[in-house]
């Protein structure tokens, strides 16, 4: 369970995030949407203790992330390229993650096999450094790196960026499967409302750092209220 309490972040006196209370229950698949500058990435960075909160706190399973690093053992995350060791080959990168999470080599091979469809033969065995892959394949490596540890909490920022339509579908299925089979609590952000609507059972809408909507959602269904918000924002 992720609990946010009186969380705010300011840059140079300007508030970029202000969320008084929010709880993500175990096993929920939550989508985070909002336009540029809404505070989605800031919220995720605070959840991962990458930046200091101006006030308030984030707790995962009851432990504050900025005080107790226990959350790292049960959390998988991928926000951007700074999560990749780009002078490693994908095999080396996955082996590095496996060692950090004490995953045995045989188990690593078994888990990697689950992502073969996503990798579509373009990632393993190429002897290339991650730096030399296309943005799309780098994105896939980062997502697999986060999911590989079978986390109890999975945090992904814009996972559908750079991916071709087929890979977007595969990633969406993988996230949904992990959530169903392992009961992983997932927080996934996207600019693309359709991608979020397809898989999430709860959607949060951020607007200029504030939580504007928090809705229960039926995966696969369109949400008229959210669509109206974005249409309205486009016309503003």
């Amino acid at each position, binding site marked *: 369970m992720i609990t946010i309490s009186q969380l705010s972040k300011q840059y140079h006196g300007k508030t970029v995030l202000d969320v008084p209370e929010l709880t993500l229950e175990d096993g929920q698949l939550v989508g985070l949407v909002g336009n540029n500058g809404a505070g989605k990435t800031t919220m995720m960075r605070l959840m991962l203790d990458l*930046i200091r909160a101006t006030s308030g706190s984030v707790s995962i399973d009851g432990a504050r992330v900025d005080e107790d690093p226990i959350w790292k053992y049960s959390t998988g995350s991928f926000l951007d390229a700074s999560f990749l060791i*780009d002078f490693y080959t994908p095999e080396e990168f996955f082996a590095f*993650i496996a*060692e950090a999470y004490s995953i045995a080599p045989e188990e690593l091979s078994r888990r990697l096999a689950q992502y073969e469809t996503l990798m579509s033969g373009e990632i393993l065995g190429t002897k290339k450094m991650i*730096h030399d892959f296309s943005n799309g394949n780098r994105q896939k490596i980062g997502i697999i790196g986060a999911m590989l540890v079978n986390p109890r909490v999975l945090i992904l920022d814009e996972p559908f960026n750079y991916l071709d339509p087929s890979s977007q579908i595969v990633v969406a299925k993988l996230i949904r499967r992990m959530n169903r089979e392992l009961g992983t609590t997932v927080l996934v952000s996207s600019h693309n409302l359709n991608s979020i609507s397809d898989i999430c059972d709860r959607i949060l809408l951020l607007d200029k750092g504030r939580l504007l909507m928090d809705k229960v959602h039926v995966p696969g269904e369109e949400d008229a209220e959210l669509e109206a918000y974005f249409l309205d924002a486009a016309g503003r």
Partner: protein
Amino acid sequence: MTTLKTLLRLFFRQFSKERKREFIAIFVLVAYFWFIEIFSILKAGAAEKMSPSTAGTVLLVVLLLDFFLKLIQQHDNTVMDAFLKTRPIPQKLWNRFLRLSHCWEPLNLMFPLGLLPIWFFTLPFGRALLMFVASYLFSVAGGIVVMRLKRRGPYAPEKAKVHKTHDSALTGRVRMGSVGLQVKALLRSKRLMVSGLLLSASFYFYFLARVADGRSSRDAMLLVFLCVFSSLATQYGFSMEARFFNGLWTKPFPVRRLLEDKYAFSGFLTVLGGLLALPVFLFYHIPLWVLWSRMIFVAGLAPLAFLVKPFVCVPYDPFNPAHFNSAGRTQGTFNVAALLSFILMALAIALIHAFLPSDTQEYLLTGLGVAGFLARKPFFAWVERCFLRERHLYMDKYNGQ
């Protein structure tokens, strides 16, 4: 239309905002040169004694050194950044700007400024001024020549450049954890690796020449040689890791382990260096105890000096060649805190060498090395605590905020 004035304004804005540390580092080094030169000149009483031919020889040697240093250190800065490439900037204008920018490049200023005391203490004023101007002009010209030598083709940035990995037996055997991270960071950054090898080779041959000359094998050159790779492995390692520190931080990967593994890797490199120096000791019948004591000292204590402030670093990107991309440039020179630690350590060694009898030196160096080894865990725990207290400030800097 973009003008030369616009490009120069951009250049100086970048200088004042992002490359200040690089300039400071060069000036610290120049000040160090001055101290050594003035101290040596005064000690030798050589003021106003250099003949024109000697001055010419010194100039030639230094210019050659300056040129080779640029061949190693100067990276290709002729590639236009994407934000310039996509605008109408004539190639002629860009070339003029590149040539002009060499007048302020720190690498082109280092030697001419560093040599000032030698000229002004040993030559008449007019000739000294002439030597300074000549060294500066030759250094700038050398910089431009190296730039032309290293220049890529006009469409190089657009080409998909593939860096194939060359897994040596060494990298194949290491585990994939943090030590693997250290080894691969060094092996896959060509610039870092070549710099380290050339620096080591030059110190090695200097040490060899001094021993062959019949000078004391106990001088600091052996220690400097042993320290080179240790220094690179410890200082640059964090600059490489700063680029993906977000990924490390969100995994159960203790910061202390990064430090401990850097210490282990540095020790491994010191042993390699010691093995390279061993034939010299055997050939010239120098007591091996001299080598062992220095190896123990460098392996045990030196990395602690280099790791006093390891997290104060600029992310180093070994892949990005664009002109205005300054990431890693400062670190491409050195970490000021580590340099100061190194100078302090060198001074301590000089004092030990000057005032203590031979055997006592060996005992003391061994003792200090062992003490460093024993103190490493509490030391790293302290460094980790310091980092954790200020981690968000460091991480903001790594993320460019």
